[in-house]
């Protein structure tokens, strides 16, 4: 298996520690004038989403994580299982709601997502940055109620709740930023 020497260490590297894949999110090079080089790293576990702080010394190495990124189409949801298909080879992959992190809130059938595979199993999925979704339920706007209710929660066709301006109505289609979960604008149906 491929490995990285400390001289290859940099942000964005995907490595494997104790069997788990990690993303290097920080790497600080510290070298006293006399003495071994040190690499102060912060790594994110891609399976558990936990952080690991570790300092390596010059000459250490880490295994490269066996991760690949693919384009996958969201096919359908069955209870808490989300089913995707690799656009290149029609291979199907399943993720639990928990594994999708917040992505499930924005998944609509046919949507093209990017997916990370580790040892050929999916570990995460990201929807496009902007998606268009239908408002399934919203409290009707109350006439004359101006100052207090400028925003309100609405329920999207995916089952997720987000906060919208008070003028958004049931049946509207809206554009949402999936990175922040924020309403952007009303979209044409």
């Amino acid at each position: 298996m491929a490995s990285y020497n400390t001289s290859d260490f940099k942000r964005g590297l995907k490595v494997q520690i104790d069997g788990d894949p990690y993303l290097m999110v920080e790497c600080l090079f510290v070298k006293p004038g006399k003495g071994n080089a040190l690499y102060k790293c912060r790594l994110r576990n891609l399976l558990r989403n936990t952080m690991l702080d570790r300092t390596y010394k010059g000459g250490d190495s880490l295994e490269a994580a066996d991760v690949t990124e693919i384009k996958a189409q969201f096919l359908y949801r069955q209870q808490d299982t989300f089913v995707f298909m690799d656009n290149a080879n029609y291979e199907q992959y399943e993720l639990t709601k928990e594994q999708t992190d917040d992505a499930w809130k924005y998944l609509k059938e046919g949507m093209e997502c990017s997916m990370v595979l580790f040892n050929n199993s999916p570990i995460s999925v990201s929807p496009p940055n902007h998606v268009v979704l239908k408002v399934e339920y919203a409290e009707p706007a109350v006439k004359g109620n101006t100052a207090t209710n400028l925003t309100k929660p609405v329920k999207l066709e995916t089952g997720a709740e987000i906060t919208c301006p008070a003028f958004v109505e049931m049946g509207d289609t809206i554009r949402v930023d999936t990175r922040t979960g924020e309403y952007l604008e009303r979209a044409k149906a």
Partner: protein
Amino acid sequence: MSDQGASHGNPPHEFLPSADWSRLQLRARLLARTRAFFAACGFLEVETPLLSADTVVDRYLDPLSVTLPNDPRMPEQGRKLWLQTSPEFGMKRLMAAGGQAIYQITRAFRGGESGPRHNPEFTIVEWYRRGDTMGDGMQLLSDLAEALLGLGPADRVSYAEAFGWRVGLDPHRATVDQLRAAAERLNVHASGSFAETDRDNWLNLLVALVVEPELGKTRPTILHSYPASQAALARVTGDPPVAERFELYVRGVELANGYHELVDPEVLRARNRAANLARAADGRPALPEVSRLLAAMDHGLPDCTGVALGFDRVVMLAAGAESLAGVTAFPIDRA
């Protein structure tokens, strides 16, 4: 693994310097001030070769080499010379040849050192004065730092004091197990490979990550009297034996390293051998143990103290910059 061929597909703006003109002007003023300081102290400015048959034999310094081809059609074949990691050997040869007080401002090269505070090619200020004790050397370094940075005279603290204060252990006597436990207690998470290393690697880890960041926070600080195992080219004295070695720190940044110089050639021969054995164990190539410095020491190196100062880091601190790139026209990725 590394990005290949970055140099010619670069965005067009990368022809520009990474430091702005105000910082390049500050750099020039500090260079002039350094020369004025040494002139006022009666030092002679000297120049020694960047390319030399000799190089410092240090466990963790990786010198770059250059081949002088005999035949231009076979540029890979010929005599191998070393780009100097510091002008130390050349300057000590001048001291052995009658030098009294000499200084140099030059470039130095160290392989594998790249980061916010490292560039493989950098500017070094180095000086030697005959008859100086470690105390004299620390005083001169403090005076120069004051002339360049204006932060007042440097405090002095021994390695053992600073280590005891931050880590709670005596660095000259603590065992590997005690050092490992201290690292864990201080939230320093060492990689598994530290299990197979020696005491010095644990000391180095704790000093670099726990002690150094606290040094020179309010006033410049000189750390002195290093563990004998980290003597490099300093002489060792006392009980417990300590190296007459000192370093200057300002705001947690290591700026200079000085020695009351080792003059005994037999001790240097033994240290060179030990350094090459350690290099071999680390998978590093051996470096030449026989050098003209040894010949100079056989002839007689006078009692003297010498210091090397990282000039780019001084400019970085004076400018309030975050990295060397902010005070260097063309750092390595734009070189």
